[in-house]
Structure formats: structure tokens, C-alpha cells
């Protein structure tokens, strides 16, 4: 580890029209090291790697590879130079075998361009043996596990003789048992002189695997540190930019009557796979109930069933003693305020005006928003209402006629929160309401949620962010493979216990004693 193999200097990337994704970032990577790039969502770690790989083009800045200035116009050029990237989503042809997938695009050919199958298979086999990957070159990709598919993706790049491997959140798709195996293989690659850059936001695995760590925040590089000389806490602090608050600031409050509950809610998808199994939960007035879980364990299905987007095959949904299981969406909206996790897909129509986004749902439920018995829109009232949200939720907006997408992410979320909370419903469903927001906006959203709790609303908060749940929830339920596996008051649990439940679906044995 003497001279850096890659040097990135003052990289600036602005996404049109004006989102600064990388703000003069400089970083260097040594030959044969494992280098982690960490940061929160939207910190710019993926963008930095995409610039290196040629998928995005920087507005300014320079990249040196082995001391030669390079500019990768596309991924093909990057691979030709020896820089390869494995994406989060695995892009292979399921019907093809492992070796066929690996040689695809770089086939050894014989007479008349015919693929030399024997040579191709042997070449792949020798690579598998060289790196001890424990893969059968003849099995079909559709028959092998996700972890093995990831190996195929890595092999695909090794087959093209790359010297630098970029991995985008490689552990996100793996089960906890598969992670050590991947780490072992990555270390072996590094020992063989390959440079490994990997993006992650799991601090523990970053500390375990990497030699050096680059921390990014809001498009800027904060620091590059040796893994040996740092700790999880200091990394977290650099990532978030302040001391991470684990303590909550809520005032104790005795919850009231049960406002919302589900009984044995069960849902099957189109392939008849059970996605929700006997979900029974209740939320009381003035209570925030959190649902923790790794994404994809039934949260989406639960939300869809509650909102009437999917039909459960069994069970009941009740708000204030009204059975809403089979109610139309509009009927549900009299009782449920809903903030979705995806602002642009579910929470707003981003190309329409702020005004048109604000009056959604109100236009059907509140007669003040229309004239002539609901036939004609009342623009005057809608404008007044928009101004009210602008003031009450401290939104920075120009004219209400501007497109919704002209607002920043935080302001978009404030407008959505304003619209939903002013529906004045007894129950509020929040699905990852702070996803992709900056720290200041997150704080604001949390304060607003706590204020709603003070107004005796019943609140269900679905979140993948445990810190968030511990900060504001009163009770945490854990969802695992479509089942609620735990229901714990926040005061009687801790992050480690919930984290274990999320990953394993059951309590750690002797948790209290060994920790």
C-alpha cells in the first residue's frame, strides 16, 4: 500500500436542475485495500462510485487511475480499464448456467464466431478455483441462492480482469449467515491484489471488514479514517453530523381508548404466497406504536391492506368501532391519515401544482373545498388552506401554483404531513415518514408526530430506522416474514434486542446475560 491506485480530486456533481450530489469530493484508494464508503441515504456514496464507474458524469473534477488521468464515458470503458461494479440488484439471466452468464459479452470464440464452449467453461472453472468461490459452473442461475448469484456477478468482473471492484451494499441482499462467507472471499481477493470499494451503512460490518473508511455526509467527504483507529460511535457521529440522540424527548402520557385495531389480518399475494399472517395489533389514543422490521417482511402489504389497495383474505380492520375491512378508500380516509414512504409515487403528484397536491382527499371530504355540491373546485379556499399549511408547518415555498417537485424533499414532506394531519382523523398511519430527509427535517417530522400524540391521536409508525422508533414510539412491534413476533414497550427493550428480533424473528437465547 504505497501509491494510491485511484485518486479522485474535487469531484462535483450536480443533478439537474440544482441538486448538489457531490460537493468537491476528493478521495484516494490504495492497491489491495478494502475501502468502505459510508453515509446516510442521499449522502452521495453511490453517486461517487457511479462517477468512478462511468455511469454518471461529474461536472468537474479529475480522476487518476494508476497516476494517469482518466475519464470513463460509460461502464464499458471503466471495465476495460479494470474497474468493475456490482450493483445492488443482481442482473443475470436466470435460465442460463453460471458459466454462460459469466462469459456473456466476452465469449471466447472459435471458427466462424462459434462459442468455444469447452474453453469458456474451463476458463470460468479456473477462475472459480483460483478464488475458491465454491460454485458449480454448470448450475442454472435460477436454481442458486442470492449469495451465489452475487458471487457470479463478482466472477463476471474477475473474468474481465478488473483490478478494482466496487460493491454497492453487497450485504443488503444476504442473510446474516451468508455475510461471513462473502467477507472471507472479499479478503482473499484483496490479498490477491484486488482493490475493493464497498458502499454500506452498516457500521459494524464496515469496521469488521475494511482497512480504511471514507465517511460522507450531504454530498461532502467528512473524513477518511483507518478502521483500526475508529469506533462505531465516532463513525455514527461523523455520518449524522451531531451526537446521535438515543434518548427520546417525549413526555409520559397515559394512552386512552383503543382507536385502531386489526384482528388476524392475513394476506396472500397473486402467487398465493402468504405475505401477512394473523396480524393483530391495536393502537390507542395518544399512543405511538412503532413497527420495526427489515424491509420486505410484510410492511408494504400491511399498509396496502389498511389503505384498501389490497384485499386481505381474512381478518378485520377497525377504527373507532367502524369496520373498515372492505370499505372503499375514500371511506377509510375519513378515519386514516396516511403518509407514505414514497413521496413521488404515492404521496404526491410531483408534476402538478402544490395547490392541486394540497387539496387531494380534502376535495372529497371537506365541503368547503368545493362549490355546487362538490361539482366545482373552490380555489379560494384551497389557497387559504395552502397558506395555512405553509405557515403552520414552516414550509418554504414560492407560489402555490409552482410544481410540487420544485420543493425540496423536506418541504415536500412537510406539505404532505400538513395535508394529511389536517384531515383531522383519529388514526394516523406513517410509513417511513423520514426516509430520505435531512437531519433538520427529520427532527421537525418527529416533533410533529409527538405533537399529534399530545392531541390524543392514535399513531402507527412503520420504520426501518430503529433510532427513530426508540426516539418517539411508546411501544414497538416487530414484523418478521409477515408475522408480528414481538410487542414490547420501549422502556422494557433496547436496540440490540429489537435488532435481533428483526433479523431472526425470535428472541436471542440468554440475551440479557451474554450481552
Amino acid at each position: 500500500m504505497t501509491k494510491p491506485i485511484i485518486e479522485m480530486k474535487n469531484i462535483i456533481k450536480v443533478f439537474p436542475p440544482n441538486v448538489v450530489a457531490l460537493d468537491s469530493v476528493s478521495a484516494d484508494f490504495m492497491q489491495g485495500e478494502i475501502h468502505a464508503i459510508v453515509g446516510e441515504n442521499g449522502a452521495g456514496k453511490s453517486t461517487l462510485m457511479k462517477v468512478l464507474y462511468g455511469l454518471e458524469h461529474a461536472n468537474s473534477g479529475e480522476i487518476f487511475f494508476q497516476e494517469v488521468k482518466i475519464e470513463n464515458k460509460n461502464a464499458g470503458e471503466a471495465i476495460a480499464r479494470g474497474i468493475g461494479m456490482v450493483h445492488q440488484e443482481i442482473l443475470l439471466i436466470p435460465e442460463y448456467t453460471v458459466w454462460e452468464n459469466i462469459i456473456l459479452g466476452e465469449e471466447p470464440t472459435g471458427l466462424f464466431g462459434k462459442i468455444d464452449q469447452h474453453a469458456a467453461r474451463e476458463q470460468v472453472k479456473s477462475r472459480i478455483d483460483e478464488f475458491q468461490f465454491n460454485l458449480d459452473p454448470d448450475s442454472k442461475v435460477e436454481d442458486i441462492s442470492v449469495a451465489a448469484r452475487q458471487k457470479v456477478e463478482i466472477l463476471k468482473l474477475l473474468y474481465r480482469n478488473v483490478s478494482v471492484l466496487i460493491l454497492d451494499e453487497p450485504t443488503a441482499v444476504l442473510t446474516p449467515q451468508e455475510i461471513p462467507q462473502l467477507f472471507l472471499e472479499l479478503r482473499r481477493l484483496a490479498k490477491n491484489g484486488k482493490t475493493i470499494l464497498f458502499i454500506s451503512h452498516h457500521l459494524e460490518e464496515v469496521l469488521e471488514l475494511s482497512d480504511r473508511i471514507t465517511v460522507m455526509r450531504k454530498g461532502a467527504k467528512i473524513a477518511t479514517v483507518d478502521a483500526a483507529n475508529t469506533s462505531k460511535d465516532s463513525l455514527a457521529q461523523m455520518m449524522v453530523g451531531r451526537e446521535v440522540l438515543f434518548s427520546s424527548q417525549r413526555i409520559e402520557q397515559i394512552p386512552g381508548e383503543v382507536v385502531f385495531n386489526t384482528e388476524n389480518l392475513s394476506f396472500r399475494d397473486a402467487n398465493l404466497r402468504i405475505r401477512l399472517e394473523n396480524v393483530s395489533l391495536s393502537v390507542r389514543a395518544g399512543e405511538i406504536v412503532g413497527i420495526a422490521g427489515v424491509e420486505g417482511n410484510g410492511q408494504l402489504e400491511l399498509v396496502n391492506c389498511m389503505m384498501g389497495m389490497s384485499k386481505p383474505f381474512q381478518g378485520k380492520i377497525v377504527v373507532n368501532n367502524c369496520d373498515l375491512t372492505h370499505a372503499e378508500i375514500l371511506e377509510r380516509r375519513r378515519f386514516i391519515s396516511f403518509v407514505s414512504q414514497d413521496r413521488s409515487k404515492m404521496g404526491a403528484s410531483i408534476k402538478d401544482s402544490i395547490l392541486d397536491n394540497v387539496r387531494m382527499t380534502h376535495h372529497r371530504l371537506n365541503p368547503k373545498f368545493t362549490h355546487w355540491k362538490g361539482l366545482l373546485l373552490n380555489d379560494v379556499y384551497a389557497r387559504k388552506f395552502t397558506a395555512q399549511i405553509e405557515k403552520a408547518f414552516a414550509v418554504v415555498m414560492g407560489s402555490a401554483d409552482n410544481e410540487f417537485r420544485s420543493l425540496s424533499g423536506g418541504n415536500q414532506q412537510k406539505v404532505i404531513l400538513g395535508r394529511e394531519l389536517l384531515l383531522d382523523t383519529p388514526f394516523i398511519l406513517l410509513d417511513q415518514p423520514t426516509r430520505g430527509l435531512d437531519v433538520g427535517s427529520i427532527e421537525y417530522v418527529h416533533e410533529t408526530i409527538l405533537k399529534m400524540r399530545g392531541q390524543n391521536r392514535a399513531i402507527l409508525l412503520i420504520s426501518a430506522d430503529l433510532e427513530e422508533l426508540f426516539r418517539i414510539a411508546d411501544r414497538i412491534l416487530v414484523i418478521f416474514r409477515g408475522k408480528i413476533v414481538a410487542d414490547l414497550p420501549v422502556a422494557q427493550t433496547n436496540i440490540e434486542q429489537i435488532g435481533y428480533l428483526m433479523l431472526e424473528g425470535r428472541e436471542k437465547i440468554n440475551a440479557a446475560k451474554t450481552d
Partner: protein
Amino acid sequence: MQRKLISGIAGILIALFIGAIIMIAQGFNPLTTYGALFNYSLIGLFPLATTLRNSVPLILTGLSASVAFASGPVNLGQPGQLLMGALFATIGGLYLDLPPVLMIPLLLLLAMIGGAMWSGLAALMRRWFNMDEFITTLMLNMIADFLTYWAISYPIFDKTAFSPMTPQISTNGWLPVIGEFNTNVIVMLVAFGVIYFVFSRWTAGYEWRITGQNSIFARLGGCKIDKNYVTVMLVTGALAGLAGGLVVMAGPHRFLKGLGANYAWDGVMIAVVANNGLIGTLLYGLFFSSLQTGALGMELITAVPSEFIQVLQAVIVLVVVAGRGTLDILINKTISRRKAREHAT
């Protein structure tokens, strides 16, 4: 709005320029050609009246496509809906005889019912069998084509004629002509005004617009998107049907073979050029009508064949549609480049 106007006018000018190059390459004088073209479509009462009259089916079918596309349904059945509207109005005109005050509105209503019935069929197939209206409306175009051809060849065939056509409808159903101007323009403007008002000011129009942009958001917000879908299909079918009825009532006063011409496909093209904007549809409809109307005059005065107008139309579509996207990208790029420079210093 301003950006749209600039990119539209710039697009048309560039397209005319490209058209001029094509003409020069073929040895024609572009100035005299364009002069003849617009002389015969815009200068003077009669050319202007003809342009306006010809614009009616273009604008109404364009409006039908614009409203449909902007609200979600991909209704491409304007040609069939136009023919069905024309057929219904013709049948009404052949078998009924009322005073004009009643007759004209009744025939217009029949035309709208004919078009709405045809698009409603596609809507029902979507609701019952989950068949995509993109396919079914196209297929129904063919059926309408042959159904009307059969109708004017056999059951309501004019026995004195030598080619498939119906007898003339009752003169009480003819649209009155004021000076040079046919009143079909008035009917079109009323329809445009109603649709514009509904689309931009009514609660229903609001839900259509939002559904067209983001149907999941609209659904979660409590809009009844299935019901809205059917309504939009019926309304846009009725608009195309009205276009058909007006073609019969303003023009030959009978249904003859090839009546629909290319009106409906040109209308769809106008909707695309106007990016589904209603006012844009009106303006582009008038402009395309002036090109088509002037084409014959151009052919008369110069040696340029009238088919050249089709080339010109195609160039306009390409330049305006491509230019719209390019302009946005250019503007965004300039902003981001400026921002990058700020951060570099």
C-alpha cells in the same frame, strides 16, 4: 406557459426552415410556395372560413386524444368513434324530420352517443375482461370502418349513386352557413369551452388530471379512479363522435365512403404535438388545418405537390416534440452547470 409558447413557435419556424431546404433541394422556390400556402388558407374571408371549417374535426378529435391521454386512458379509437358518430347522425338525419332548432341539437347528441358507445365498448372490455384499451380501441377502429362501409353499401345505400354513400340527410339537419362561415365552428368552440371548464375547474376534471399524472396517488387520495376511467372514455368518445357528426352536417350532408379521411389520426398527432394541453390542441389544430387547406392552393400555383404538406407535418411533429424535451434538458443543464461552478470556487 411562456416556455411552451416559445418552444412551439421556435419548433414551427425550424420545421418550416427544414421544409424550405427540402424544397430547395428539389428545385422549388420556398418563398413562393409558402406564400401560396398561407395565401390560400389565411388571407381573405373565404380561405379563412375554409381553414376554420376544416379545423373542426381536427380540433375535436385532438381534444378527445388530449383529454384521454392527460387523464390516463390511452384512447386511440378516435377514427372509429368519429365514424360511429357520423353514422348515428346520418341515420338520425335520414329518418327524422324536425324543425332545425330541435333537429340540429338532436343530431349532435346522436353523434356524441355514437362515439361514446364505441369508446364505452372498449371501457367495458377493460372493466370486465381487463383488456387494454390501447388494443381494443385500435381494433374497434377496424370494426367501425367496415361496419359503416357495410351500412352505406346496403341498408342505407343511396340507390341513385354509383359508389357507396347514403342519400342526403334532411335539410333541417344541415348546419346553417353565415356568410362564408359554417356554424360547425361555433359548435366546436362551445364543446371546447365546456371541456376546458370541466377539465380545469371541476372536481371531476381535477381527479382526471391527477389520475393521468399519478394514478396511485389519486387512488390513495380517495378518487374513484375506475369510475373516472369510464367517464373519461365516454367523454372522449363523445368528442370524437361529435367530430364525425359535424363532418356530415357541415359538409356533404351524407355519409360517403372515406368520410373520416385522416382527421382522427391527425387529431391524435395534434394532441401529441400539444403535449396533451387543451389550448395547445386548439392552436395546433388551427395551424395544421391552415397547412392542409392551403395545400391545394399551393399545388395550383406552384409545382410543389400537395403531399409535401404531409412531409411538413411530420417534420413539425418531430421538431416540436424533440425540441420540447431538448429545451428542458438544456435549461436544466445550464442551471446545474452554474451551480457546479459556484461550488467549485
